[in-house]
């Protein structure tokens, strides 16, 4: 390698820029922007305002913050449900007034005042909820009008009763405690706010009503069609918001011991800005309580900060308007363009260099030289099948294969003309294997390892393994289970080709060439799945060796075959058996003469090999060109290769016409015939192997005669 190539390798293989894309797939990244905004806001006002962090000042501002964040929590729930509640301003003022008049004028106990405040909040919430939830009016205008109505009623009442409130002699220790005292330095308002935020967070993320609210916000129509009572759910959100306002009204009534004409003025716009600045999507479905609380802190700190710095009249409104506009625009643009950004940065190719392969050209004289042997095979299921990735035969000579429709098809011996749907898996069945009891095991694409009993019972064996600590994308989930085989003791070894892409995006994985594939082992005794080998370049075929202690493992994008010993004296060792092949290996299966068959899904090309050594070029390609113009590995020609335990190539079978079997993903020997499948093919081919044992079958050879 030249120095330049070494540097390239250093740059692309050791700087983990794939993590940017992986982090962007995470939902919690949505929280990052408001969090940074929060830190910046506090930093700015903390430095501008002397004594900002003094306990006394903090105690006072946190009391206000506690009250404010309760309202924002309620509003956030409404927004998550796809609505909006502007009436919080007057609702809160009315609740405060209800508490004040009950306690100070009607001289009732404080708990009655508490209930009165909650009752007023509840009433407002029910009215809003009924109008918007059940009558389906527009949330914004409706709550705007209930805001004005509430404000007008409040203005009338507050003027009427203000002198009576001021002359009242009522006092209460509890009231004073709520208003002035702290518990371990934390005021009652803050404690209540934290409790409410925590309860709301748990309810929204982990309870049925919470999920209903989120799904109604996410897609009202789908929620309706899924049987969720949309109207009642919407109603509920406004009721919750109303109750939050009622509670806050009570707290503020205690703090101020009264309510004046200015109580709650412009609160609705403050709360709305807070919810949106926190990053909750207008229109619902996306957001969280935590975001709402972060937004509440940002808005309150900014508003109070501007007042304390001493900016003139109007500066607050200017800041609010600016914050609201910027937050809404950012949110909408981000929501709209997030997947574009993700597409741009997710594919991060690495440098991968393979040595030159021996030629596979017909007549080139190398062991790999392809012939035209399988261009004329007996077709099975022509035009009936779509995507038989793997084929397998049972003890009674019936033939099984998967299709891309999620079914396993069974063709009946002896002529394989008649077929039936043997089982429906729901995902694309890839690798197949029989265990000792005759259960058909299958790696179902994007789903996991499944077992289908002879009486067609489909059971999931494994869909996850242990997550690695350093992983960003969830690598516990099986994204691309590909092939499986069973050890003599019943353990199932299977591959998961990549952790960064879904099964249908295998082409992106090939362009990236990042080794993320794994060999996994499912142990039926414990029901647990363990990761055996990691960092494989598209781990593909698995096949038990004839010795029962080791297995062969194909690594597609590395064009190599490994042997891994899981038992016996060499247990745990991994050896390269074949490397730098001219083709991309797929499934491997045992042959009757003690050797192995291997499928080539495609052939290496000099251009793609060169591209693999230039990760920067591939990166620019995925960013700047439409997908149609990308350079992909060639999968239009493949073949079948026979090799022995030492890795010696014994022969090849090819289809130079490209009609019958251009791409081969699996082959299975059975009673002197070779059955050939291809994931992009519409048939299974049957090829008579010269000089093969006409009685050899894989189940009998491996598991013995039927007990």
């Amino acid at each position: 390698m030249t120095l330049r190539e070494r540097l390239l390798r250093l740059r692309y293989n050791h700087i983990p820029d794939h993590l940017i894309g992986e982090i962007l797939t995470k939902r919690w990244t949505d929280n990052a922007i408001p969090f940074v905004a929060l830190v910046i806001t506090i930093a700015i006002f903390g430095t501008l305002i002397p004594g900002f962090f003094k306990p006394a000042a903090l105690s006072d501002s946190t009391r206000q913050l506690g009250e404010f964040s309760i309202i924002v929590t309620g509003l956030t729930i409404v927004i998550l449900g796809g609505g909006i509640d502007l009436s919080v301003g007057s609702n809160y003022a009315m609740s405060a007034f209800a508490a004040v008049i009950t306690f100070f004028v009607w001289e009732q106990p404080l708990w009655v005042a508490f209930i009165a405040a909650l009752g007023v909040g509840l009433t407002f919430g029910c009215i809003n909820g009924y109008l918007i939830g059940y009558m389906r009016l527009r949330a914004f205008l409706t709550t705007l009008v209930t805001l004005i109505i509430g404000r007008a009623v409040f203005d009338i009442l507050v003027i009427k009763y203000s002198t009576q409130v001021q002359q009242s002699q009522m006092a209460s220790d509890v009231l004073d405690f709520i208003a002035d005292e702290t518990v371990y330095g934390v005021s009652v308002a803050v404690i209540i706010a934290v409790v409410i935020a925590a309860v709301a967070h748990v309810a929204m993320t982990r309870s049925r009503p919470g999920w209903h609210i989120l799904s109604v916000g996410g897609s009202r129509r789908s929620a309706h069609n899924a049987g969720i009572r949309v109207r009642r759910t919407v109603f509920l959100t406004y009721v919750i918001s109303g109750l939050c306002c009622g509670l806050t009204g009570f707290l503020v009534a205690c703090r101020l011991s009264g309510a004046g004409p200015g109580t709650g003025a412009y609160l609705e716009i403050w709360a709305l800005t807070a919810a949106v600045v926190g990053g909750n999507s207008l229109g619902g479905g996306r957001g969280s309580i935590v975001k709402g609380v972060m937004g509440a802190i940002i808005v309150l700190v900014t508003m109070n900060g501007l007042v304390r710095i001493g900016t003139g009249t109007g500066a607050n409104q200017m800041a609010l308007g600016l914050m609201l506009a910027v937050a809404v625009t950012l949110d909408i643009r981000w929501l709209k363009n997030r997947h574009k950004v993700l597409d741009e940065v997710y594919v991060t190719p690495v440098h991968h260099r393979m040595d030159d392969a021996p030629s596979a050209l017909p007549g080139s004289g190398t062991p790999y030289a392809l012939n035209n042997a399988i261009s004329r095979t007996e077709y099975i299921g022509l035009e009936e099948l779509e995507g038989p990735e793997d084929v397998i035969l049972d003890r009674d000579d019936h033939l099984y294969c998967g299709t891309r429709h999620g079914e396993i098809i069974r063709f009946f011996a002896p002529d394989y003309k008649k077929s039936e749907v043997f089982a429906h898996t729901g995902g694309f069945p890839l690798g197949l294997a029989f265990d000792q009891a005759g259960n058909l095991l299958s790696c179902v694409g994007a789903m996991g390892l499944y077992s289908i009993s002879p009486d067609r019972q489909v059971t999931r064996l494994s869909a996850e393994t242990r997550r690695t600590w350093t992983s960003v994308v969830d690598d516990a989930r099986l994204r691309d289970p590909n092939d499986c085989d069973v050890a003599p003791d019943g353990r199932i070894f299977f591959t998961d080709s990549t952790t960064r892409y879904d099964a249908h995006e295998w082409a992106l994985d090939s362009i990236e060439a990042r080794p993320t594939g794994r060999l996994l082992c499912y142990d039926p005794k414990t029901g647990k799945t363990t990761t055996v080998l990691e960092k494989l370049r598209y781990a593909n075929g698995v096949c038990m060796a004839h010795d029962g202690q080791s297995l062969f493992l194909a690594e597609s994008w590395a064009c190599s075959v490994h042997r891994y010993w899981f038992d016996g004296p060499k247990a745990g060792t991994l050896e390269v058996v074949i490397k730098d092949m001219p083709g991309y290996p797929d499934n491997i299966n045992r042959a009757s003469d003690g050797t192995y068959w291997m499928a080539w899904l495609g052939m290496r090309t000099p251009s793609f090999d060169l591209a693999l050594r230039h990760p920067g070029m591939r990166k620019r390609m995925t960013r700047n060109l439409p997908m149609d113009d990308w350079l992909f590995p060639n999968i239009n020609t493949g073949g079948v290769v026979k090799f022995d335990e030492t890795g010696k190539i014994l022969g090849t079978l090819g289809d130079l016409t490209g009609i019958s079997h251009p791409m081969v993903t699996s082959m299975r020997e059975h009673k002197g015939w070779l059955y050939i499948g291809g994931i992009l093919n519409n048939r299974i081919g049957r090829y008579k192997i010269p000089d093969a044992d006409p009685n050899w079958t894989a189940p009998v050879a491996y598991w013995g005669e039927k007990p």
Partner: protein
Amino acid sequence: MTRLLSHLTQEVIVFLLAATLFLAAAIFLPGFMFKDGAFQAGNLIAMVRAVSVLGILAVGMGIVIIGRGIDLSAVAVMAMSVAWYLQMLNSGVPGWQALGWALAGVVAVGLINGFMVAYADVPAIFVTLASSYFVYGFVRSQLIVSDATPAPAGSWILELPNLGLVTSTHIPIDVYAFGAAVFVGFLFLRFTKWGRYIYLMGDNFMAARNMGVPVRPMTVLYYVISALMAFVAGILTTSSIQSMNVRVVNSNMLYDVILVCVIGGIGLSGGKGYMRNVVVGALLIGIMGNAMTIMDFTNVEQNLIKSIILLTAIIIDGLLNPRDEQTAQQGDI
């Protein structure tokens, strides 16, 4: 009878209601139309005059609503642009230059509103709410010095009520302006291509876009129109009270403008309504406001009554143009 009922649109109902109210007020309310048994036009003229500014704002708002938008920044633009204009005149900026600046500012707000709605896909309600706050805050804190800005003596604005036409007919300039605004709005919506486009957009936005209506420039256009209407309304306000008090932004005026449109029969879901609906709506509000003032309702009480009427109007609008889970648009709040 059924034929008669089918003609009973919201507009007709409102008109009948307005007529009934008018008659009732004329007969039972002393001072509304007759004082001590003698006809007097003064109160009626005052009534129409009182709703003229509202009506001009409602013409702009109506055009926006027909195009399926809403402009919550109208009152802020009205007050702040004129206040800034007066401030410039008071501080000695030459008249034409000041007018140019003010108009440029007004058009800029309209452009920004329209741009954010049309090109950045932000819901109109939030764009205009934010711009309302921003415009108020920016002008109040940066460009003017106090809430009330008087018009400089001898300004052309103060001369408006003394125009020949006005003095000869005894009908205030506001009424002429309102009439002119309605007429121009009518001509625009009825006889120009762009006017028809606005109906198409309001009726079915996606279909209009698919058939080639330039929906984005059109959206920008109607926000600019609304902003310009607001400026005209502001000038008229100043001509009658000789100053501009920006506290009007914090009042319920904006809701009155929406009330005029909705109650007159301009459906909030867009595509429906004409300029005559604005007239009908404005008349009803004018009669009500005038009657309530004569009956000695306080301002707050009037607000309460008007907002309850607005809520009723929205409920009726919702019943007449129902939305359900299958047809409601996501994020349509």
